[in-house]
């Protein structure tokens, strides 16, 4: 129905991440997973991602810091934050740092998919502007 695009899910909770990756894959997206912020950044060197779904609270490099690094590396990549623990503040802070939007855990798959598509559309518009 829509164009296929590359997405990356970053979450330390394996069960959550793996399931979300599978569910997005059967919805015709090219999806990769990363369990830490660092791995996500490494992966970005090898592949081009259009949309990143990034958990805010993670051990090691947390979501906000990862977001900052990603925006340095690939400014056009759109990021959607996942907030699991009522940290709307960090969600809003992330928005200030250039995140596209945030989604509260547990995730409604249709809502997330909508936002990912919107994010992709914005990325496309930005690329055309260049």
């Amino acid at each position, binding site marked *: 129905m829509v164009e296929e695009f590359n997405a990356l899910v970053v979450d330390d909770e394996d069960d959550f991440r793996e399931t979300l990756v599978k569910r997005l894959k059967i919805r015709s997206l090219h999806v990769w997973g990363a369990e830490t912020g660092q791995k996500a950044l490494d992966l970005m060197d090898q592949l081009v991602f259009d949309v990143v779904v990034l958990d805010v609270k993670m051990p090691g490099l947390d979501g906000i810091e990862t977001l900052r690094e990603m925006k340095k590396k690939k400014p056009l990549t759109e990021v959607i934050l996942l907030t699991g*623990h009522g940290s709307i503040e960090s969600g809003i802070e992330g928005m200030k740092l250039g995140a596209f939007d945030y989604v509260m855990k547990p995730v409604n798959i249709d809502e997330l998919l909508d936002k990912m598509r919107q994010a992709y559309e914005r990325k496309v518009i930005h690329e055309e502007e260049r």
Partner: protein
Amino acid sequence: MEEKYYKKLWWKIVFTTLGFSLIPLFALGITIYYQFSVSYTAKIIENLKTLVENRRSSMDLFFDERVSQLVTIANTHTLKQLGEETYLNKIFKTMQTRSQSFIDIGIIDQEGNHLAYIGPYPDLKEVNYKKEDWFESVLSKGVYISDVFMGFRKFPHFIIAVMSREGGKTWILRATINSDIIENVVRAAQIGKKGDAFIVNKRNILQTAPRFSGELFGHPQTPDFSKTMETLVEEIVMDGESNFFAATAISNTKWVLVVKEDPKEQLTPLLKARYIAVIIFLAGILVIVIGTLVTTQSMMNKLIQIDREKAISEDMVIQSSKMAALGKMAAGIAHEINNPLAVIGEKAGWIKDLLVEEDIAQSKNFKEFEEAVRKIETHVERTKKVTHRLLGFARRMEPILEKVDVNKTLSDTVDFLENESKYRNINLQVDFQPDLPKIVSDSSQLQQIFLNIMNNAIDAIDRGGEIHIKTNFLPRNNEIMIEITDNGPGISKENINKVFDPFFTTKEVGKGTGLGLSIVYSIIEKLGGRIMAASEIGQGTTFTIYFPVKQ
């Protein structure tokens, strides 16, 4: 317990105040009274001394006069002249014209024989005085004044004798004097109803008749003053009664004049002053006691009121700290539940995704699987609502402050609920004060508050009822009031105090989280307002919210 404490405090304040007021009053009263008493007594003593010395002078003057009269007669006449009774009678008559106190007069030679005698007792002419004590005395001293005696005459009298020399001859001029005159002088010193005055000789024998203190020629029923030389004044207690005595020696005789005074009579003004002082004193005590009681009572009332207010504010502090603690706990629990919940949600979603595949759709239990997964998703959704509300409850987001028109926020909320209330046949009535001042607040949080309360009201009424929303400005406290009243079933007395507690709900399990009103409470507190709930079973419930109008 509290009652006892206040009672104890009351006594403490009363006793302390009375002590500090009455002790100086007592000290002042006693000092003034004592000083007054001392100076008044001194004055009485002074007066008494003046009196006795005054009388003494009169007496001295009297004796001086008599003695010098006789000495003059003796020295200006020859024995021969006086020895003639006709001549002596002439002189005696002259003397009597001046003073009736002379009774008789006689001339006595050095052998003690009467040479001449004029008076009512011619028999005395035969008496020889050579053996008498006074005869010796007058010859040696020149002048002699006798004690008072009755003699032949049967009335009190005394004699004055003076000696004269003529050539080698010595002779004596003797006169008898009625002691009435002395009595009169002494009587003048008998003051008041109980005062007394008398004369005693060297042997403490009365020379005049006192009023109360004995008989003439007897011993006085008073202390012995017969050896007195200088004037003295003493306070002496006799038979349990205090008396003032003044005594002084009369110079010409060997007598002592004694004046006695009853201090009660003299001290009457002092006693009067004492009565007045006591009355003023008692009145003063009464005023102080009443004043103390009134002041203490009003102080205690104030204290009790302050204590009550303090207890109320402590209750509020406890309430808000309870909320804070519960909020933290709720956030912790919500966080712990939320992550596994996300996994459950994803897994259920994944199963649902897979169920779409054809071969599984053929399975005979396909419907059951689908139903189970749908249920899991529904309940994950339900749990998510709880955890998000819990997290929202604990969240410490700074409110975004702006000028808010509360009437507008309320009518937005009412519009939002319009459909729901119409469907349930509930009438939403508004009664807004048109010129309600704007408050500095967070409009979205206010909306949340109003929505929660109105939702509760709709749930309470269920079907067919009325919700009344009213705003008002209270200029006295400079705050606005929002009143939301429903005519639902009401809240019982034991529950009304718990409505703001987290997790308290009377709704069926699964319908309410018990967080709505506690969120309302914490938001209002954060925004600087306060909320109160009042309810009557069968009548309905009113929530009243107050917000300060800040500049």
